[in-house]
């Protein structure tokens, strides 16, 4: 093995320490690839978050209430979008929350600060991973939809899928903040404390009593659900622009809080 091991004057002129743009792009791409690969290889993560939404959708919309779905087109639509949002929430909240907490606790985050990793590579990789998982979830939901008497055009399905894939980002930011605040062992419990109430209180699966509407309004799941409906051109509540603003606010606000915490506390 004759490769020179060190950057030294003795092995020729000192090598440039500037990174060509293509190498920086490659570093981002590899980080995203390996982050997705590691989560796909983690059965405790990939199994539940890829299979649970479509399994529950098939259970409720086909096996238990299939006949009613055939008679109630709006019910079929809401069931589809509701379980889709369930599939959007998990990868971001758990993927970010638990991995960031573990990386902090086990010293990998420290190592990443020492390595010359491009500044945002790790965050972007985790976001790409969450969006990839949501894309897979949406593909399984779209494949299951005809069995649940859902009558939507290809364009409508594509629109709601795209909205939901990008809609993973606010949940990534929520998970990121939990990961920045909690230990590796506590992170799953803290994420569940947000995840489970949000499923019920956002009204995505069950209608809420009027007295609880306020809870839906503060939940990013509700806003993403309504935005998905609007993207398909079907009736929705509220202005799509407001939903977008709320989701962007949640994403930027929680991400900035998490970054602040990590920079100052580690």
């Amino acid at each position, binding site marked *: 093995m004759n490769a020179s091991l060190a950057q030294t004057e003795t092995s020729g002129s000192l*090598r440039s320490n500037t990174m060509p743009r293509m190498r920086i792009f490659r570093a981002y791409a590899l980080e995203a690839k390996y982050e997705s690969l590691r989560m796909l*290889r983690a059965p405790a993560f990939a199994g539940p978050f890829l299979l649970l939404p479509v399994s529950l959708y098939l259970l409720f919309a086909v096996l238990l209430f299939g006949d009613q779905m055939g008679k109630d087109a709006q019910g079929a639509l809401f069931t589809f979008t509701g379980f889709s949002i369930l599939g959007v929430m998990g990868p971001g909240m758990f993927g970010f929350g638990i991995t960031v907490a573990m990386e902090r606790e086990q010293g990998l985050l420290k190592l990443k600060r020492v390595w010359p990793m491009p500044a945002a590579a790790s965050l972007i990789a985790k976001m790409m991973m969450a969006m990839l998982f949501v894309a897979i979830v949406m593909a399984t939901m779209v494949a299951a939809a005809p069995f649940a008497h859902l009558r939507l055009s290809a364009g409508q399905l594509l629109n709601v899928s795209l909205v939901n894939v990008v809609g993973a980002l606010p949940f990534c930011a929520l998970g990121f903040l939990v990961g920045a605040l909690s230990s590796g062992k506590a992170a799953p419990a803290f994420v569940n404390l947000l995840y489970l109430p949000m499923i019920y209180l956002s009204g995505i699966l069950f209608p809420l009593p009027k007295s609880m509407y306020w809870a839906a309004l503060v939940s990013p799941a509700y806003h993403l659900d309504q935005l998905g409906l609007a993207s398909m051109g079907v009736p929705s509540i509220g202005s799509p622009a407001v939903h977008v603003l709320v989701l962007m606010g949640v994403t930027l606000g929680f991400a900035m809080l998490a970054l602040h915490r990590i920079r100052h506390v580690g």
Partner: protein
Amino acid sequence: MRVGGKLVLVMNNSCLAELSGVTKRFGNTVALDHLDLDVERGELLAVLGPNGAGKTTAISLLLGLQRPDSGSVRLLGQQPGSMEPRRQVGVMMQEAALAPELRVREQIDLVASYYPDPLKPSEAMEITGTAPLQRRLYGKLSAGQKRQVQFALAIVGRPRLLFLDEPTVGLDLQSREIVWATLRRLVGEGCSIVLTTHYLEEAEALADRVAVLARGRMIATGTVSEMRALVVRKRIACRTRLNTADVSGWPDVQTVTRDQQGMHITASNTENVVRLLLAADENLQDLEVQRAGLAEAFTELTQENA
């Protein structure tokens, strides 16, 4: 500019990393107390010290993971933590856990992608003896194999300056030999290495210079020979009919013990003691005189400063 009592005009061209008059506190605990430490080009510097001496804090400051309360820190002529010096530094930490779901080759491929002109992953694996592990998941490796992979990650970027924290803990003899040979090769090519280790024979075998820290202060620095010379005592072993009580009363004798191998004496002036031994016992056998090793020097220095 005067920092911590030390005049710093321009960073010496041969100095790759420098702590100047650095103080760092954690609450009421002073981790580093006006510490001066520099790493010269092409040297292997072993930083030794008992637990809590400030070794890890010193390395963390040089790597930009922490900031000093006072004093200055320079890494490759720049502020530690900025991207330019990080591209010239390799690091192997003790506690970092890598992603268990990635294969060894994937880990090395990923870290290599951060550097401007890295080794090929296959070269890094060949050099570090990790090629047979390349398809294995990191989480399935033994503790020693994980250290080997971490060493491969430390060198894959072709560093000018390498920080190694206890690199051979948990390694078998063959793997340790590979690490030592690679470190010697790196130093031969002009790479500077900062090594913290509890294995004094490792420092003795590899280091060009040793820095001993205790309670956040530098208590001694120099070559291994210079460090040994700080400890004036030497050891004498022999078979003799003399009894220990008599010998322990002689001038220059510090301790005397006897076991099945014979009598063991530590003395500050061995030449005088040997003359007395030969005069007192004409049948004296198996006489050996040994210099103190780095271990004795380290023990004596740190005890003095405890």
